């Protein structure tokens, strides 16, 4: 068995490779349609057409706005409180050690099972959806922020002291910039799981929102609607994530 270092792949532009991936997915989609039939799935083309029509209906936008409201609310709380608490837990050893296993446990349980409790506490409506979304998002943000703070190299702290900086100035100019990439990763993941939580809450017990529309479409077997909504949510989530990811790469490259 001979081992040579793997030769570098010949350079295709990144856009070209993404195009191949998207093309592959669309072809797979079309094939799945052939297997499943018209009753079960719509073709890519049909779905795009339906989506275009859907985007001009008021009904869609009312629900999209409702989802957007819940999502934005959950983000506002989770992505602000999350880093703040995470930083506190990161700098205060004991709190961090106490909190971490709890957060890790929260991260891995099916949080949906707690939704009825949230509904009982907050009642049906926006508050419960925001609470549920926040519950989802705040956990990874806290975990990643805590870790980011803990991973700050001690030599940076010593450098700060050697430069005679006050604790606050040191945090602001040296420590938090150093921890920023990893904190941002937590925010990015928090964004995605907040979306997951928001949509899920609407799929279960709501009268509005895109999740609700999705379940309603399932109830009347409106395959076109199901596929269109699925496509839109997938597209929104992936594109948002890709944008956040490119910011994140920049941050990491800086360090």
């Amino acid at each position: 068995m001979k081992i040579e270092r793997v030769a570098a792949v010949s350079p295709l532009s990144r856009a070209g490779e993404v195009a191949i991936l998207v093309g592959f997915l669309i072809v797979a989609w079309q094939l799945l349609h052939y297997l499943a039939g018209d009753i079960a799935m719509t073709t890519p083309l049909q779905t795009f057409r339906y989506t275009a029509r859907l985007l001009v209906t008021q009904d869609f936008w009312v629900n999209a706005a409702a989802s957007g409201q819940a999502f934005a609310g959950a983000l506002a709380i989770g992505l602000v409180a999350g880093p703040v608490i995470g930083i506190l837990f990161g700098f205060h050893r004991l709190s961090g050690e106490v909190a971490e296993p709890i957060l890790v446990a929260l991260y891995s349980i099916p949080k949906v099972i707690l939704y009825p409790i949230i509904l009982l506490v907050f009642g049906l409506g926006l508050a419960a959806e925001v609470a549920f979304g926040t519950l989802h998002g705040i956990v990874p943000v806290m975990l990643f922020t805590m870790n980011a703070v803990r991973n700050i190299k001690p030599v940076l702290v010593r450098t700060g002291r050697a430069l005679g900086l006050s604790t606050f100035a040191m945090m602001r100019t040296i420590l938090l910039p150093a921890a920023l990439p990893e904190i941002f990763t937590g925010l990015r993941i928090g964004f995605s799981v907040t979306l997951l939580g928001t949509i899920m809450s609407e799929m279960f017990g709501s009268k509005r929102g895109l999740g609700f529309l999705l379940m309603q479409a399932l109830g009347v077997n409106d395959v076109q609607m199901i596929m269109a909504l699925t496509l839109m949510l997938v597209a929104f989530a992936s594109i948002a994530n890709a944008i956040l990811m490119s910011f994140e790469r920049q941050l990491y490259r800086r360090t």
Partner: protein
Amino acid sequence: MKHGFGIREATLVRAALLAVLVAVLEIACRTGLIQRFTMIPPSEMVVSLVRLFQNRDVLADAGQTLLSVFIALACALVAGFAMGVALYAFPRARRIADPLLTTYYSVPVFVFYPLLIVLFGLNAIPKTVIGFLYAVVVMAINTLNGLERVPFVYWKTAQVHHLSRMQTALHLILPCAGPYLFTGAKFAIAYAFVGVIGSEFILSTGGLGYRVSFAYNNFQSDVMYGVILFVLVIVVCINMALYAWERVLMERRGGR
């Protein structure tokens, strides 16, 4: 460095905190501060949990959920591992699949649930597929990670010892990547539970998630909290066992 007083203190504080929380809830529920229809006292939750073990329907639900989780997990571990190996072996495919891998978990996987119900009907298949879809990629990513982190010097060592491909894979690569495979499996287990139970909760004809939503919709607080507690206990116990096992394995390796 983290042994001794550091860890123990945190454990004590945490246990104390949780105990206080439970006590506060108990008192608040019993004194009517928290209304009965919102939450039943923790002690009654435990009683309900024990009673549920004699409830045939609930046991059937548990069986259904665990079976779905098991199937989803088994498939995810095998397929995820195979995918990870394939991506490692074909760098071009890896580069093309890369955007998919990085955005995969940003998509709320449950949006596919209605589509799967249309395709397969309202039975156990859609939720098992969701569990599979949720768990498979994290296994693939960790497998790929583990393979890539095999130090190049190990490959050279294999040649010096005249190992065949199979021997290298079995006796060198696999043990070396082991911790990463374990991490992948840990996540896969958690995600399989989330996928199956989440789906059951949204819409299903059986399973523990269904039992919780059914109990909620029918104001059966005791059953609802009992099953919630049951699910939490199972998942937390499994995760704790995995973490403990992992710590033992890693300590021997000195954290490598």
